[in-house]
């Protein structure tokens, strides 16, 4: 991989991944300086994670993965040994790093040189002297809850009051807390508090074998089960130096596009409903149910949690499935086209959608917006298009973008992506030779680090997997694009009215569980 960035004087190695990926080790100075250079060269921070290697060389490590035009660059920094390991913060360069650095502190007790040290994932479920991802901590230890009030930033002034929402929300959704400071109807400030859904998945991975880890990966965020389990398998297959058969890659992509379709259909219905158009919810939820039932006939399950497995997929399509699916796509396309015309021509609906929750492209780029939300603000980025891993190298997906960055743009991206996904599904079915769907995956050599990256419906999901001896997992870090996109809401909500928050929030539909881990 050729780099536009000058990394001279540094040892660069290829990293095991399904994308072009390099790996370099840097000191504290370069950790920060190279991040600045990467940002200037148009790089984006993809994810950040820590590791406890004190059993090997007495050090903690911090890793950062960046997305560049040519591929992914992983930077590793081993911290000085000592009582209080620290590293330079990236939050000034990449604002989305702030929450990730706070999470790394909660889990490892390694501090970035950044002033906000409020617990992010740790709410009082374990003491602040306990760091669960350290190797000498027994993951099964439980502590009594000791919750203290969280210090939200206070807004002062005449007539300013706070509205506290969550963690238990009014609808059937995941837990999180939003603190609004408002004057009248207008929001002055929004502060999010997440982490309620933290279940200790990274520690849990370390108790699992390489072969069974995909089951947990699929359950990091239930709406992105295919994306996460594929990312896990891609990382594992890379470090085990094997690839899945072409037929299996095709079926994985088919399942991934079905996941995208199901979520987009659900969201389009919910967005109509949140704007007072219940007809939209009825119609789209009906179409989503139809798709889930087709999933049950073709893949054997409504939600494809255990479909993607190391080395391939669990089952092949039954003989009559291609016909069933192709017929279904025809019906789906016609129904979505007619509903799109209704949505587009409905004055009341468009009045709510347009100019609500605007994320300008400049701000989106600066804050590091990725995935669907980024594309609605003109951020041209889609892993399937930019670094087409098989089978997308053959399918050549088209990039879908919008420029206005409002709720209407995020609605339009979903409509366009539905049609594009249907096109890809057709290509897979019409042009896919029969063949084996599974290959044996040997245990990866111990101490290998691999990165699996898949463009889920919400954006890129990543799994960084390091093998332990035999069949064990030494470290597994999972990253959901919601890490980048949750902070966007804090920036774009002020100025909007409180009543528009549910609609704007839904237009992003970010994951709590995928974020909290």
């Amino acid at each position, binding site marked *: 991989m050729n780099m536009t960035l000058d990394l001279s004087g540094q040892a660069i190695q290829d990293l095991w991944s399904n994308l072009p990926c390099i790996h370099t080790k840097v000191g504290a100075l370069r950790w920060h300086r190279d991040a600045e250079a990467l940002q200037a060269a148009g790089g984006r921070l993809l994810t950040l994670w820590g590791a406890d290697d004190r059993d090997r060389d007495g050090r903690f490590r911090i890793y950062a993965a960046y997305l560049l035009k040519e591929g992914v660059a992983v930077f590793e920094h081993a911290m000085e040994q000592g009582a209080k390991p620290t590293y330079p913060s990236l939050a000034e360069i990449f604002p989305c790093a702030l929450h990730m650095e706070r999470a790394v502190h909660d889990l490892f007790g390694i501090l970035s040189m950044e002033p906000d040290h409020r617990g992010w994932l740790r*709410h*009082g*479920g*374990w003491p602040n002297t*306990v760091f*669960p991802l350290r190797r000498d*901590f027994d*993951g*099964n*230890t*439980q*502590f009594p*809850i000791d919750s203290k009030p969280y210090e939200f930033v206070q807004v002062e002034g005449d007539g300013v009051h706070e509205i506290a929402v969550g*963690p*238990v929300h*009014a*609808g*059937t*959704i*995941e*837990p999180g807390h939003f603190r609004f400071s408002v004057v009248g109807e207008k929001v002055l400030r929004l502060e999010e508090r997440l*982490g*309620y*859904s*933290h*279940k*200790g*998945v990274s*520690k*849990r991975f370390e108790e699992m074998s390489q072969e069974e880890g995909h*089951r*947990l990966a699929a*359950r990091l*965020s*239930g*709406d992105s*089960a295919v994306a996460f389990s594929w990312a896990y398998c891609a990382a594992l297959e890379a470090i085990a130096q094997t690839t899945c058969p072409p037929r299996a890659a095709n079926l994985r992509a088919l399942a991934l596009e079905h996941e995208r379709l199901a979520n987009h259909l*659900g969201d389009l219905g919910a967005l109509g409903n949140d704007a007072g158009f219940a*007809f939209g919810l*009825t*119609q789209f*939820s*009906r179409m*989503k*149910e139809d798709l*889930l039932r087709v999933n049950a006939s073709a893949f054997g399950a*409504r*939600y494809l*949690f255990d479909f993607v497995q190391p080395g391939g997929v669990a089952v092949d399509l039954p003989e009559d499935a291609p016909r069933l699916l192709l017929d279904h796509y025809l019906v789906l396309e016609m129904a979505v086209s*007619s*509903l799109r*015309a*209704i949505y587009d*021509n*409905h004055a009341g609906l468009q009045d709510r959608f347009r100019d609500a929750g605007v994320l300008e492209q400049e701000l989106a780029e600066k804050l590091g917006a990725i995935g669907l939300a980024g594309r609605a603000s003109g951020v041209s980025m889609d892993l399937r298009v930019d670094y087409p891993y098989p089978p997308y190298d053959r399918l050549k997906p088209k990039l879908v973008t919008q420029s206005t960055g409002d709720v209407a743009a995020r609605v339009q991206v979903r409509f366009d992506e539905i049609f594009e996904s249907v096109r890809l599904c057709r290509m897979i079915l019409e042009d896919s030779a029969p063949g084996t769907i599974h290959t044996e995956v040997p245990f990866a050599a111990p101490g290998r680090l691999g990165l699996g990256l898949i463009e889920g419906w919400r954006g890129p999901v990543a799994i960084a997997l390091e093998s332990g001896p035999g069949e064990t997992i030494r470290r597994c870090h999972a990253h959901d694009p919601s890490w980048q996109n949750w902070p966007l809401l804090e920036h774009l909500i002020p100025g909007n009215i409180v009543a528009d928050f549910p609609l704007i929030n839904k237009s992003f539909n970010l*994951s*709590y*569980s*995928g974020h*909290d881990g």
Partner: protein
Amino acid sequence: MLNTLSRMIRTGILTETFPPPDTVSPQVEGLQMDLRKILGRALCIRHVDAGSCNGCELEIQALNNPYYNLEGIGIKFVASPRHADLLLVTGPVSANMEEALKRALDAVPDPKLVVAVGDCGACGGVFGSNYASRGAVANVIPVHRTVTGCPPNPAAILEAIRSVLS
């Protein structure tokens, strides 16, 4: 408007009878009768996600689609636990949600029922219990019925709601 109306007419009524014909439980009228007899009004459900992966939520949401048409049977989801008869709890209970779940249960007026949904709610599922997870819902609050499945399909969730009433 004409397009909207014509779409509605062409779609028609999709609601299916519950439960699906291959099971032996009583039909939807039976459930409605039970509700009328026991409560004399609609059954009000408050859902609490205590740390789920969001898979169970998707299937619970599906209960409101036109095929299952939960409100047509006389069951509705309410926005506050204070209005609820039944708590539908998903997920292994995360340590960070333990307090919120207990408070939500306290806010439900007596008599109250709790149904734990999904493998995680029933037994901790793939997450189990650890420093951040309390595992099954029953480890934190009393549970009257569990529905297994990952995620359980909407008909199974509906069946658990029916059976906990009787």
